[in-house]
């Protein structure tokens, strides 16, 4: 009885849900559409289709717009940041999960502080520190602070994953006389692969998207990463909307690809981390 009146209501609800989903991704669809238009096509209206796709916009963005440099810089920064952050997170996470040391609570509090305080709060001293070290306009300026900023999350994420490992396995290895480095390498790390890859995924997205660090610590175009390149590209090319949108697609395409491939792992890690 109530069921029959529910069917139109349920259908209506789903239509609303799908409309909302469509509205959410419309900016991306428009971006994609505009990126294959000519300048003349743009004047015909945002929703009008081009006569034929102008893929040369991508070439313009890539070469004339320096997106080849920005893309390369993003890769050069992201790989060492992710690798070093996961590695250091394993070491410090191992210490927080299994080892005793003085000032344990204090050190933990200091680490969590770094997760709460945004980079904006300490960017001025960091800028002068990097300047003192002569690292402004180097890859090191983009890489080292980014690793340091990732350490709290990497440590806490991996430490709590390590605490879930069955203790008997580790005890058995100790009884067999295995050293700690050996146990870390041969037993803990293989069991940590899922957690490590989730962590790597987060670190990849955060580093790829980082804006403030490259914005303040680098002003030479040769070292700009993609989001920064996009900002300065906008300054130069505001009138050339098709090339601008092609550039935006170049920035977000690797993200969308990564997200679609690893979506389950990403969401699972996100919700597990968030509700802990």
């Amino acid at each position, binding site marked *: 009885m109530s069921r029959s009146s529910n069917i139109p209501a349920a259908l209506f609800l789903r239509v609303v849900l799908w409309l909302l989903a469509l509205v959410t991704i419309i900016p991306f669809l428009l971006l994609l559409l505009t990126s294959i238009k000519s300048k003349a096509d743009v004047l015909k209206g945002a*929703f009008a289709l081009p006569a034929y796709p102008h893929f040369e916009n991508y070439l313009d963005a890539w070469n004339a717009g320096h997106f080849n440099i920005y893309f390369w810089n993003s890769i050069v920064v992201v790989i060492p940041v992710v690798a070093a952050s996961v590695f250091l997170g394993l070491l410090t996470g191992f210490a927080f999960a299994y080892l005793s040391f003085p000032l344990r609570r204090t050190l933990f509090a200091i680490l969590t502080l770094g997760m709460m305080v945004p980079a904006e709060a300490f960017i001025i001293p960091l800028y002068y520190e990097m300047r003192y070290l002569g690292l402004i306009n180097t890859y090191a300026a983009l890489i080292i602070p980014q690793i340091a900023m990732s350490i709290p999350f990497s440590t806490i994420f991996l430490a709590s994953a390590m605490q879930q490992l069955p203790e008997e396995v580790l005890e058995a290895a100790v009884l067999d006389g295995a050293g700690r480095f050996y146990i870390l390498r041969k037993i803990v790390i293989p069991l940590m692969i899922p957690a490590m890859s989730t962590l790597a995924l987060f670190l990849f997205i955060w580093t790829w998207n980082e804006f403030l660090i490259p914005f303040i610590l680098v002003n030479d175009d040769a070292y700009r990463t993609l989001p920064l390149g996009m900002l300065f590209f906008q300054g130069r090319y505001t009138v050339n909307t098709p090339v*601008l949108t092609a550039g935006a697609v170049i920035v977000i395409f690797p993200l969308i690809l990564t997200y679609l491939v690893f979506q389950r792992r990403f969401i699972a890690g996100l919700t597990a981390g968030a509700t802990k």
Partner: protein
Amino acid sequence: MKRSALDGTQQTNFIYLLPGLLLYAAFVFGPIVAALGLSLTSWDGLTMPRWVGLGNYADLFSDSRFYIALRNNAELMIFYCVLPLVLGITLAACVWNLKQREQLALRTFLFLPYIMPTAVLGIIWAWLYNPAFGPFNQFLRAVGLGRFALPWLGDFNFVLPAVGIVATWYFFGFCMVIFLTGIQRIDPSLFDAAKVDGASARKTFFWITLPLLMPEIRVVLLLTVIASIKSFDLIFTMTRGGPANATLVPNIYMYQLGFELNRFGAAAAIAIVGALLTFAINFAIHRLVGARSKGLA
């Protein structure tokens, strides 16, 4: 006293701890402490810093622009925190008993903005809002609402909501995903019992779903409130705080004072006030919303 079978002497334990902690101390914790010290000085970045005690803070709290920035930030919290929370929880309650595949598809779309760089989203939305050739106004004109086609980012009254909506769009799918897993965590027999008792969908939502989602509500509030206080990228790329301070927020003000006017002491004071605000709100949310979580320490 051993924490686990793997525990060793303290000297050897430090081998594991030190590399990460040293790097963190040098490039995060040290600069945080330095920012605190810097906020107590007057410094132009060239000459020696001059000690002014709490002078910078006193100046801030008699600075009308700082109050404007705080008020804008408070208004933006409606878009950063309240709207995504309400939308996310409503959507989760609608989506969770759809079929798996449809749920997954909707989630994929709604979550998409959250993985994007906010700086690039700001640039994209500045284009969407462009008064002359922006798709948003073209759409309004096409559906006969041309008189509402405003210069959104140039209009003193509408710029804050226009920027805020982008934040809502960025966060609401994320909130929905968190709430979806929250609902799946709830014991299904509770919903069955409610159905047997003849409870309406609305009653079930307000008496079962909502109270049991408190841990997720707390997490979402924490993350979005922190995000709103640290908001910089999105606003900087869309409006740079303008027009006429209409979207000025503390971090934009911090950037202007520090990197444009070389008043680094005053800028550091804003950064510290922002950090303290984050702690205070963090503490309040932990106290007021839901149970406390277990820590690692």
